[in-house]
């Protein structure tokens, strides 16, 4: 299966471990990820503002480039996924804005590329049974809490990846890997997002609530698909662990890191050294 792949800025910098393990897992699942030859920032949150012809230029440029590779564009970062998928809907539904944007970019694009998240691709096209069949070291005996955050799920009418209040795609994946899945009530709560820059004390409170809940429920790992959630929860956790004994460590992994572990990746390729809260002690217990 050949699909276009848009890594996005953070996967090329802060979240390299996400990118590396995703490529490794894709290969195991016979998915050929073809990275766009030239790509720039998708615009992040900016395209979501009301009058967004300008904001559409960046995502549509990416979508238009993808159409020469295939009919689908895969992303991993929740921000990029949300931005590209919503921009694509506008292009499909709003002829006037489509005209303006394509005239400006001097590229033809009519919205026909399908934006898919890696989790969607795994659930809908690869199937969890196939994932299970590729597991060589089942992750039994480790309690993992799935954490979705906001942008992977909402606004649900436009994103539609899963139930916005009680999603299950990550639970199903974790089960296929053999994990002991924690029923996590705060799995769709916001981590504080970009406020880590302009209002760090508020973002810290948002993240702390999620971390306390995960720790109280005895989770040993948190799993996410968003580099910003990963950073916020990792950063805040490091500070909480340094300053008080309120929580026990719940290292935050990307779902592809866990998949790669179960499918037998060489440990040094997991990128654990990039984490602020070291996942190795929790993972060691698995004796892989």
């Amino acid at each position, binding site marked *: 299966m050949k699909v276009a792949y848009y890594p996005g*800025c*953070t996967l*090329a*910098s*802060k979240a*390299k471990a996400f990118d590396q393990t995703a490529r490794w897992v894709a290969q195991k699942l016979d998915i050929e990820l073809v990275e766009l030859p*030239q*790509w*720039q*920032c998708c*615009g*992040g*949150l*900016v395209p*979501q*503002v*009301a*009058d967004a012809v*300008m904001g559409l*230029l*960046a995502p549509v*440029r990416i979508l238009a480039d993808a159409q020469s590779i295939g009919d689908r564009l895969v992303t991993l970062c929740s921000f990029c996924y949300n931005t590209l998928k919503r921009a694509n809907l506008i292009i499909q539904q709003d002829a006037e804005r489509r005209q303006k944007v394509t005239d*400006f*970019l001097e590229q033809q694009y009519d919205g026909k590329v399908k934006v898919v998240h890696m989790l969607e691709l795994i659930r809908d096209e690869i199937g969890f049974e196939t994932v299970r069949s590729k597991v060589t070291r089942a992750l039994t005996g480790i309690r993992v809490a799935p954490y979705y955050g*906001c942008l992977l*799920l*909402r*606004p*649900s009418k436009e994103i539609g990846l899963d139930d*916005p*209040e009680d999603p299950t795609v990550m639970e199903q994946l974790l089960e296929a890997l053999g994990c002991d899945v924690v029923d996590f009530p705060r799995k*769709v*709560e*916001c981590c*504080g*997002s*970009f*406020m880590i*820059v*302009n*209002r*760090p004390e*508020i973002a810290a*409170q*948002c993240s702390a609530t999620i971390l306390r809940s995960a720790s109280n429920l005895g989770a040993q790992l948190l799993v996410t698909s968003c580099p910003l959630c990963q950073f916020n929860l990792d*950063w805040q956790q*490091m500070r909480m662990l340094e300053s008080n004994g309120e929580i026990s460590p719940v290292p935050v992994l990307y779902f592809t890191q866990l998949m790669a572990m179960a499918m037998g990746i060489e440990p040094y390729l997991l990128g654990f*050294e*990039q*984490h*602020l809260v070291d996942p190795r002690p929790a993972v060691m217990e698995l004796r892989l």
Partner: protein
Amino acid sequence: MKQSTGREQVARTDEIPIVLTEEARKFVQEVIRRSGERVDWCYQCGKCTAGCPVAFAMDIEPSRIMRLVQLGQGERVLKSKAIWLCVGCQTCTTRCPQEIDPAKIMDTLREMALEKGYIADREVVTFFKSFLDNIRKFGRSFEPMLVLQYNLKSGHLFQDADKGFVLLSKGKLPLRPSHNSASVKQIFEALEGRKR
């Protein structure tokens, strides 16, 4: 409509008409027109406030913002800190029983506040401007410069110095920006040319 006695009118507040001034009415209509959202459908159940992850830090909670908009209290709403604290997580939008999109209304209010020059939270605007500048220069987000520019402009000179140090030591921060900025610069220049 059923005729009622004076006594009943006092007891049933839903029948007391609320008269908006012309200015207030215009504000309500402007918000509805720009957002495309029927803010007048809000019946104050409070679900948006209950689910909002940052309501604890807001001067006016989301449901009260909705009510103030209904009442045309433009100045109070546009000068609030709350509209700048909303991160757009869309929990309210997902849960609104009237299918209103409060996150979109917040976005509309920010836009209107910017036009009027009311920025109760300068940091977030500085952050977004620094972010766009960063993309203009490098094509992709190059965080060391983004943080540097934000800190200089916001005056918080050493904010995030701790994060920068930790990230650098973990190999998470690139030392050089990536390529592919020429064509992005062209897009920005063409856009600005068009605006003038």
